[in-house]
């Protein structure tokens, strides 16, 4: 009897050990990004400022990635943000499944960042500058992240050509916020990349999206990205240059006058040593209503400069200066410090 119990205890222990060891192999890759800021600007002392002076918790992103089965991969990214001085919330920024076994196409379903432009597909920690481009912020609020389905086709031509079509439920507070069921936003993006040489690439993308807004009228949004990247084949870890220009525009249907907004952003990034980058950006945004003769009622011009020190692939310290001209008499000037780090098995960023 004693032996019987001993056998059961040993056997169950063995089974448990192998079970836990086996199970851990199926755990998703997990990573946590932390983003902290210190802002100082001439408008930051206003109690209602969107960018108050002082230390701030910008965001934490928790990412889980794993194959679900032989056919699909799962990706979940939860964002922790600060709502008020003492309150935080968790947002399911992206949670989706992707197909693994269908030739030429990747099907995606869930909540995801839509392909309306290159910037909209980036997570906060991967932004080229500390903040988003003016056009993205003004047209889309934070971003256009919605539940829906997506199909990305690799078109069989000699260069890289990707056609992505998406249909999502519009919940965006600025452009696509119709309350009726099935008020979907339909989007398409055609992206091309050419190897100009082993060291230089040129990327050009166009995109278009359309859906209903809160006025029960159509909102339309369109944009383009043009990106040149140069990295030498010899000593390539020490130097690189990237030049990005994006245009984003949209019409929000309204009665009697629709709003037309457009913005352009161009920025240059130069890696001058293994761990150092220096960057410059200039932007323009305006919005007008149907009465074009009256001219735009919002005009913003912004210039930014940034220096980044990256101790490793997993940490980054950046300082950014912004100069914003808008409808106020005195331009906004702001200096922001950012600390950005990642723990765990973070998946590689896209090119």
């Amino acid at each position, binding site marked *: 009897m004693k032996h019987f119990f001993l056998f059961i205890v040993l056997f169950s222990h063995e089974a448990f050990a192998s079970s836990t060891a086996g199970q851990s192999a199926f755990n998703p890759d997990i990573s946590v990004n932390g983003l902290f800021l210190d802002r100082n600007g001439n408008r930051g002392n206003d109690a209602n400022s969107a960018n108050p002076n002082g230390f701030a918790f910008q965001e934490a992103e928790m990412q889980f990635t794993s194959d679900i089965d032989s056919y699909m991969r799962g990706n979940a990214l939860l964002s922790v943000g600060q709502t008020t001085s003492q309150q935080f919330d968790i947002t399911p920024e992206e949670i989706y499944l992707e197909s693994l076994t269908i030739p030429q196409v990747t099907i995606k379903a869930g909540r995801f960042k839509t392909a309306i432009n290159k910037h909209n597909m980036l997570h906060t920690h991967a932004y080229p500058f500390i903040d988003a481009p003016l056009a993205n912020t003004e047209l889309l609020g934070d971003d256009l992240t919605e539940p829906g389905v997506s199909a990305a086709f*690799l078109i069989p031509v000699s260069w*890289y050509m990707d056609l992505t079509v998406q249909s999502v439920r519009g919940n965006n507070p600025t452009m696509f916020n119709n309350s009726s069921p099935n008020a979907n936003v339909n989007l398409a993006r055609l992206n091309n990349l050419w190897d100009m040489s082993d060291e230089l690439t040129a990327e050009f993308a166009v995109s278009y999206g359309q859906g209903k807004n809160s006025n029960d009228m159509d909102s339309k949004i369109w944009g383009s990205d043009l990106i040149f990247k140069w990295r030498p084949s010899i*000593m390539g*870890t020490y130097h690189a240059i990237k030049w990005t220009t994006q245009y984003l525009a949209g019409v929000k249907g309204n009665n009697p006058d629709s709003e037309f907004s457009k913005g352009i952003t161009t920025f240059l990034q130069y890696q001058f040593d293994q761990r150092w980058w220096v960057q410059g950006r200039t932007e323009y945004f305006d919005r007008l209503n149907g009465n074009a003769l009256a001219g735009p009622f919002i005009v913003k011009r912004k210039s930014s400069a940034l220096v980044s020190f990256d101790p490793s692939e997993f940490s980054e310290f950046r300082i950014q200066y912004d100069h914003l001209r808008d409808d106020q008499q005195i331009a906004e000037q702001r200096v922001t410090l950012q600390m950005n780090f990642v723990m765990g098995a973070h998946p*590689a960023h896209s*090119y």
Partner: protein
Amino acid sequence: MKFLIAIILFSSANAFAKLSVVTTTADLAYIAGAVAGDKASVQSIAKGTQDPHFIEAKPSFMVTLNRADLVVAIGLGFENAWLDGIVKGSRNPKIGKGSDGYLEVGTSVDPIEVPAAGFTRADGDVHPEGNPHITLDPIRDGKIAILIGDRMAKLDSGNGKYFQDNAKKFQKDLEDKTKLWEARMKKTGITKAITYHKTLNYFLTRFNVENSGTLEPKPGVPPTANHIIEVINKVKSENIKLILIENFFDPKVGERIKEEVKTVLLKSVPVSVGGDDKIKSLDDLFENLVKTFEEAK
């Protein structure tokens, strides 16, 4: 729908063409090329002049992989920063991880420097499964040829014997040459060397040379002034005659040591096929390294 069908049909149209092999590094491409002969096409993603840890996941690589029948990678975390993204972006189910079209050779050739438990990222860019620079050992290169030959035979059974025979011949050839290189390395009398990164440890281990230290204080961490002073002291105290700097790293830091220790030979060396214009094969690569030791004796 017709559009989707057209794309899928196009993708399978070359089902009867010769095998298309894509490797992650230029060394693997050289080995795969020797095995393939004229019965398969081979191309590499990384160039010999590039540090393979930091290849950018260019979408044009997705196009290359979209048409591949076999991807050959080192594994051991070597290509973690970029390979998964381009395999996924290739939308080619034939080369997904776990399929016959995906081969990682690193774990099958007895990797060295597998870290003990308890390491963290504070220890630098440590590879949990061992040092991934396996192709710097000619004997392991022979074993890699056998692995590639077997996998190509599985994918193209009609040419299977041809691939496997080529692999055996390649392995035998490298084993014979290794004996000659061993004799020449022994004759130099050099038993210690310093490198920038741990790239050359397989080569050094094969030829009984101790890597006395690296210019990086930890893997992936650029040299610091304090660490270089420690290296200078080590070079002096241990009478080290040779510092090898892999030629994708900045050699300036080595010059600082050379100023302090005039007797040491400081050499920037290619560490991959295609690492410079003269290195067109693995034979050239190892021959150049052996000659560097002969120069330093």
